[in-house]
């Protein structure tokens, strides 16, 4: 079996400065563990998702795979090539796009910027220009081809950065939160292009990190859920959701509640519990994963005993986010429903 990416017990930690005074936390550990024995295998031609909240270790893994960072220990192979021992060979096979980031020089226009980066990959100018034309068309950027990038909007600049990654013709693409901060339409264009690009050549592989669960669900062949540097689980989205088949997922909205959230997890029959405050609606959304559907009566009884009025209650199909909640015992608070 040919793997596009393989990691074996990959570890990465960063030294932290110790707190200087007593007001700060004196128990600050000396290091931050970003990756903790992370092992994954990504097949050639696969669109693989790496899911996790902010700080889970997703970007650290991508930086190691793209030769920007050395692991503290462990091995990482990209297309069978060791990222530590043969970084030059790895670079010929990969590219990377980080969402929310910009590239290039404000003084160059869009076409020139894409051409410049293509040259760093040795692509003949004619080939590069043809690829640029295609990308501009697919991503609806034709009218901005001669616009200086300093004058582009944030979303368009991100789109440019996305094109920059693909114009260089990589075999394996690392997409680190590629739709971060993009509006719905641009994010849709980006996702559509990823699919098109994958279909064009079965050897192409994408490693996509995201904390938008719906995006991963829609795009990925397989996903790994990562939290605090550990790979918790790895399977197809369908199989992961099936792990909750015997369980029931309920969403309950109550008036905005500030305290006592931890007690909900102790209700009999509750496997996992997560919540999200929606201040603008004056509500708190509670998500319960129950061992059994019948346990919902325990939940409603608990709520009424605690004088919590139920605004709405609904049973839900399990999502990847529920898988995450079931695994780590908390929700992806950063997401705040901003999936696009």
């Amino acid at each position: 079996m040919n793997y596009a990416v393989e990691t074996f017990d990959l570890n990465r930690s960063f030294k932290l400065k110790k707190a200087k005074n007593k007001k700060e936390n004196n128990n600050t550990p000396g290091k931050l563990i970003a990756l903790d024995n992370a092992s994954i295998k990504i097949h050639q031609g696969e669109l693989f998702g790496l899911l996790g909240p902010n700080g889970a270790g997703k970007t650290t893994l991508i930086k190691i795979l793209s030769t920007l960072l050395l692991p503290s220990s462990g091995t990482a192979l990209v297309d069978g090539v060791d990222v530590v021992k043969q970084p030059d060979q790895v670079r010929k096979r990969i590219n990377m796009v980080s969402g929310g980031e910009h590239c290039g020089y404000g003084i160059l226009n869009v076409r020139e910027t894409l051409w410049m980066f293509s040259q760093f990959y040795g692509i003949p100018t004619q080939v590069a220009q043809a690829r640029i034309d295609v990308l501009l068309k697919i991503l609806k950027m034709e009218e901005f081809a001669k616009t200086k990038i300093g004058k582009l909007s944030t979303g368009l600049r991100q789109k440019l950065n996305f094109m920059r990654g693909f114009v260089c013709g990589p075999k394996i693409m690392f997409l680190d939160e590629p739709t971060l901060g993009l509006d719905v339409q641009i994010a849709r264009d980006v996702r559509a292009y990823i699919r098109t690009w994958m279909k064009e050549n079965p050897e192409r592989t994408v490693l996509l990190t995201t904390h938008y669960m719906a995006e991963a669900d829609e795009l990925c062949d397989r996903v790994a859920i990562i939290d605090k540097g550990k790979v918790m689980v790895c399977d197809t989205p369908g199989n992961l959701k099936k792990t909750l088949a015997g369980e029931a997922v309920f969403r309950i909205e109550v008036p905005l509640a500030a305290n006592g959230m931890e007690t909900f997890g102790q209700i009999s029959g509750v496997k996992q519990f997560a919540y999200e405050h929606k201040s603008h609606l004056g509500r708190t959304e509670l998500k319960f994963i129950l061992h059994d559907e019948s346990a919902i009566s325990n939940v409603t009884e608990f709520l009424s005993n605690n004088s919590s009025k139920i605004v709405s209650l609904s049973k839900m199909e399990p999502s990847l986010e529920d898988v995450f909640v079931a695994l780590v015992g908390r929700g992806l608070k950063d997401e705040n429903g901003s999936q696009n």
Partner: protein
Amino acid sequence: MFENTKDTIRTIRTAGKLGWAMESNWTDPFLFAIYSVVRPIASSLILVVMYYVITRGKTSLDLFAFIYVGNAFFMYVVNVLFGISWVIHDDREHYQMIRYIYIAPMKMYYYLFGRGIAKMVLTTLAVIITIAFGMLALKIPINLMTINYPLLIFSVLVGIFIITCLGILLAGISMVTAHHSYALTEGIAGLFYLACGAIYPIDILPVWLQYISKLLPLTYWLELVRRAILGKSISTTLGGYSDFQLILIMLGTTLVLAMFSNYIYRSIEHIARKHGKIDQLTNY
């Protein structure tokens, strides 16, 4: 009114702290102290060597003292001008914070002034060190007992105000120019270096350039500073004016500069907003 004053002070104080952090916390205090001393001393030594190469020490010390003191105080122009005008570029392209600073309900003038305070403090130290070095190592004839301190302090304060006005003017220009705005600031400082008689009496300049010199408040500022420290002037062009007359001319030209600087800053700021250049990225 009181609230406004409090807000102004708060803005200046916060910007000042930020400026100081940026200036000083990149290294340990020892290295920082060396850094703060080496540049001004080196800059003065260039002129010292030029003087000795030509005169071999045989000419009177008056011209040397004139050059040395003028050059020492000119450091305010180079550093404070840069400290204020560079803020636009630094906040825009490096920290990419300009949009948040710009939309804050504070006066940009006060923010820019605040950011320049660190440079003012450091330059004052550098000037003191340079003058002390000149007195001790180069035997520059300065008598600490005969310095006209009130005139010196007054002149330095007005000088800082003049340079702040120039800094704000350049900050305005930086809003619409690219990466090379550091060269613009250095270049403008070069214009004053040439025209204000920082390192020679303006008498040596061509007549047409002397007219420009006489329009610039920094010319009078440098003359007053020299008179306060050295007790005399060797400039025939400015020598005819009394201290009081020079102060009046300096204040008059400063007032015109302040109005001009304000007008230019506002006009360019308007252009920058019109063309969406407030938070542009131009680096290359």
